[in-house]
């Protein structure tokens, strides 16, 4: 019996595990880095133990500290969540050695799957189809395109597609660096890259008594940079026959390593219908809720039962309906998916309760309004899951939930998610892993230029109402009254498409009402409501036309210090991992100047024009804030 569980994780998965524990009457022990001192998982756990420091390597990746925490807080079991040490056989062994219950597979099974290279060999041996392995030094043009992959870890880190042989060495080196940094293991390997493949995975759950469930497949084909964006079950392309084959292979894979607990066997489904084993994730998967939704199961509760030695029924319950999950990230899809950080003022996404066959929405969030998204960890804010009797309804429900969310803070991928969910190709079930790369149109914000203009008008009217409401003098007089009217009242905002200036008095549309947080306009005979949230100069306008983030351009703002022409500024806070040029060096447009690592992703900073590096105030290892000067490239172009 588990009575007090240490959750060796953070963010949404820690909260999700705590939620199940609360329902089961199990006390919880949270751990937290200094950056997470006020995070929700800390508040929601029964007790919490500080892990001094901020970097993952100093905190959530420190097995010794976690075991110390379990000891001092009196935990009798450890759940690793996903990521961090969840797939570390050494950590699992250390937990067991400490006499604690490990909520996960046996270390031997984890070790067998830890190296993707080894795992592939083992799977091939039991007849599970795998892709050929290629030696980087021996690949030829005939092998192209190929995929460079980190042997350890997951989540797309250290993964690169290679289409030409030149530069392969640099790609391999970069992948190694990223793998080393993310997983502490620089091993990478190459395999053929299957174009237009689909990512299909099977959820398995095995008990200590020899029962292995295969809980159907999940289709995670829509990916960006090899990271899943949308996950659904069932897959729109998997036939009952294929499902049986996949499930059979998954069960075989699990059995081959003596698997116990929840795990996921990932396959690549080629356009020809053939599938290949990719890897097995020996842990709970980010996207496990879609499986929970269609089977009506709580996988974390089942993990705990299995860890307690309880036998699973022989067969899982039947699946019903369709579930789809979207990963809501603080990232900007339109600018290379760069992670975004900062204060998340409002995070409001309505859950819809389970009620018979009515579609429902489940939100597994790591954050609440008022949290700060830091650059230290994964920028995922929440997983939003919709279930409905049919796929179409589930897609529509999820799109509506996301579109209606109020997200005031760092830029998110919300609009992209909504666009994909409404994209005809995705709706038709035809999206493969190349979908996002092939459909740039989904990168566009939901709000078009007209929506931005109306939102700016609403923002200006709301700001005016707020100023009038708080005016110390002449507050009762009509706003902006003039006996001699010489000009319209205007306001300029920085918007998603650049500056937008609106005249708000007189307003181009009839104003039905305007309060500091809601403006109702009559637009071409249609009554439209805009909710407006203002924080200093930042404004968020939510409406049926899409969310618009604006920044008031105050003509009376303190003039900013001038930036030297040719300045390259850090797009986000991070660490300079490599400097590729020297001061005084001539560079060509697009040439690499330095590499900034933030949130475990490498961001190349390149020369904006042909020219000469005039200043280079950074060095490898330098920590930089967003907007910090990295280099000045004096252009020699006309």
């Amino acid at each position: 019996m588990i009575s007090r569980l240490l959750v060796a994780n953070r963010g949404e998965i820690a909260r999700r595990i705590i939620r199940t524990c609360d329902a089961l009457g199990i006390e919880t022990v949270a751990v937290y880095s200094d950056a997470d001192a006020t995070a929700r998982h800390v508040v929601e756990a029964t007790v919490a133990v500080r892990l001094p420091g901020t970097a993952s390597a100093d905190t959530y990746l420190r097995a010794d500290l976690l075991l110390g925490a379990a000891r001092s807080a009196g935990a009798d079991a450890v759940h690793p969540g996903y990521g961090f040490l969840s797939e570390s056989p050494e950590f699992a062994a250390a937990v067991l050695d400490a006499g604690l219950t490990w909520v996960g597979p046996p270390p031997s099974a984890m070790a067998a799957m830890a190296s993707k290279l080894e795992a592939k060999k083992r799977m091939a041996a039991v007849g599970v189809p795998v892709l050929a392995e290629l030696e980087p030094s021996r690949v030829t043009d005939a092998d192209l395109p190929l995929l460079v992959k980190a042997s350890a870890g997951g989540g797309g880190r250290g993964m690169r597609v290679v289409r030409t042989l030149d530069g392969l060495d640099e790609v391999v080196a970069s992948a190694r660096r990223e793998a080393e940094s993310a997983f502490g293991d620089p091993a990478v390997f190459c395999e053929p890259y299957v174009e237009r493949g689909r990512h299909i995975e099977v959820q398995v759950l095995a008990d200590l008594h020899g029962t292995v469930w295969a809980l159907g497949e999940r289709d995670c084909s829509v990916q960006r940079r090899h990271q899943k964006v949308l996950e659904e079950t069932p897959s729109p392309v998997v036939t009952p026959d294929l499902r049986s084959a996949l499930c059979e292979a998954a069960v075989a894979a699990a059995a081959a390593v003596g698997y116990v607990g929840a795990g996921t066997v990932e396959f690549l489904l080629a356009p020809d219908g053939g599938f290949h084993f990719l890897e097995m994730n020996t842990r709970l998967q980010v996207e496990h809720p879609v499986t929970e939704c269609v089977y009506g199961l709580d996988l974390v509760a089942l993990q705990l039962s299995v860890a307690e030695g309880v036998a699973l029924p022989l067969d899982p319950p039947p699946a019903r309906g369709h579930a789809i999950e979207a990963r809501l990230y603080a990232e900007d899809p339109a600018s290379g998916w760069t992670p975004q950080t900062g204060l998340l003022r409002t995070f409001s996404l309505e859950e819809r309760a389970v009620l018979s066959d009515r579609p429902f929405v489940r939100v597994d969030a790591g954050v609440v309004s008022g949290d700060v998204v830091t650059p230290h960890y994964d920028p995922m804010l929440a997983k939003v899951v919709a279930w409905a009797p049919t796929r179409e309804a589930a897609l529509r429900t999820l799109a509506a939930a996301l579109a209606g969310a109020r997200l005031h803070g760092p830029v998110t991928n919300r609009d992209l998610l909504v666009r994909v969910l409404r994209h005809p190709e995705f709706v038709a079930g035809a999206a493969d892993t190349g979908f996002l790369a092939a459909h740039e149109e989904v990168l566009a914000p939901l709000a078009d230029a007209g929506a931005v203009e109306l939102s700016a008008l609403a923002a200006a009217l709301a700001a005016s109402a707020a100023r009038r409401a708080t005016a110390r003098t002449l507050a009762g007089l009509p706003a902006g009254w003039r006996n001699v009217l010489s000009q319209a009242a205007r306001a300029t905002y920085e918007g998603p498409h650049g500056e937008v200036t609106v005249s708000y008095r007189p307003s181009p549309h009839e104003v039905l009402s305007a309060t500091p947080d809601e403006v109702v306009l009559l637009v071409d005979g249609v009554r439209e409501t805009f909710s407006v949230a203002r924080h200093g100069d930042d404004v968020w306008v939510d409406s049926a036309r899409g969310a618009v983030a604006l920044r008031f351009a105050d003509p009376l703002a303190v003039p900013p210090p001038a930036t030297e022409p040719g300045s390259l500024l850090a797009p986000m806070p991070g660490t300079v991992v490599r400097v590729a040029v020297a001061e005084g060096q001539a560079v060509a447009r697009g040439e690499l100047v330095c590499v900034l690592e933030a949130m475990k992703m490498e961001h190349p900073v390149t020369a904006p024009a042909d020219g000469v590096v005039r200043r280079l105030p950074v060095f490898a290892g330098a920590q930089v804030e967003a907007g910090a000067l990295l280099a000045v490239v004096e252009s020699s172009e006309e």
Partner: protein
Amino acid sequence: MTVLSSTFDPADPTAVANRAHLLERLSQLDAEHAAAIAGGGERYVERHHRRGKLLARERIEALLDRDSPFLEFSPLAAWGSDYPVGASVVTGVGVVEGVECVLSANDPTVRGGASNPWTLRKSLRAMEIARENRLPLISLVESGGADLPSQAEIFIPGGQIFRDLTRLSAAGIPTIAVVFGNSTAGGAYVPGMSDHVVMVRERAKVFLGGPPLVKMATGEESDDESLGGAEMHARTSGLADHLAEDEYDALRITRRIVARLHHRKQGPGPSEPADAPRYPAEDLLGLAPADLRMPFDPREVLARICDGSRFDEVKRLYGPSLVTGWASIHGYPVGVLANARGVLFGAEAQKATQFIELANVADVPLLFLQNTTGYMVGRDYEQAGIIKHGAMMINAVANSRVPHLTVNLGASYGAGNYGMCGRAYGPRFLFTWPNAKSAVMGPAQLAGVLSIVARQAAEAKGRPYDEDGDAAMRSMVEQQIEAQSLAPFLSGRLYDDGVIDPRDTRTVLGMCLSAVHTGPIEGARGYGVFRM
């Protein structure tokens, strides 16, 4: 508490005619305002903008608290004169960092912002408003100095600008000069006499004598920047307290200066509920008489400008040609004197005198709503002492110390203009409806008087009277007096602070009342000898 009930019917033919007449007057007024706004015209405005400069009104708009109201004074100044309408300066009262200030901005598109005699009068009036109401004065300076051809009318009286600036300062009323461009010769004393000075880098030019004059006077070779640049004044002479990067920066700094004045109102704040009137302001267009011979009930106006249409009348049954009573506007209590039937008789004059004394004892500001043809004439009235009674009222008005606000709703003739606190009686603010007129008497009466006098002179000399000549004379005089009685003419001469849309009356009075409460509100405790 008494709530006025209106019997006004907007569909009444007179109301419809009044409304049509007034809308026409308002469109003429808009056209005149447009001329003032246009300043020096498209070419000069375009040139000014091209130089990266803001127009006078753009500077004001950027300086004011966003969405706060602004009441511009005398936009028609110089109307009917040889000088452009508006008199190349924009003045008014508005809110900066929550503080009501008087703003005075040169219009550099009109002859380089040079001052003509009307500019001078308008500027001095703005300073008078600042002084009387203890409102900080912000001068947005860009002026080429005196308009040289008219120097004879400006140079000597113009010294008052600098005298009044420093007197404002001495009275504890802050003065701020923001220099955007030329401010030379005499103009240099505007920043020179102000408490706070902001100059815009590479734009402000403040010196007593420019390079040519210096060369002529002493033979010294010099340039603008070393004689009077913003940077020089900020670093070397110390005349500038703040060096601004550009115009917006200057306005930003100015707002910070005002914020740090911690200027406090000395009068009480609004003390009554400031709910809207029960009747629409729109009706005022139908109420304002096109034909001034048609009297109208001023209670109908009060029902559309007073808080909640509440009005507690005093002496309703005595001297009914004048309505007196208590009300509030935007929460500020006021005592109201309003002409009801044009003519002021002895009873009305005595009633007014008593009411003015009551307001002074209670420290309540007075609102005069003018629509008077003057004091009654005739044997019976003279013998009953109409002069004494009129004098009592004028005495009371002249020596009253509570702030007075005057609105001319229609007619303002004869000594009625004086008794009802016309310009000469120093109301803190005076505004005119577009249909209103003011003169010593009506044009026909005046022409008739002249005709009678001429006829008597001819008869005395035994000469035949030239009837044709008389008719021509009467017509000419009538036309001239009519023209000189009209609102734009009077406003052009600064006999009021502006012609307003009747629908704005409540708003204008609300702003004025708030402004006057920036100073103390203390009534007179003694008067001149009343001739009983």
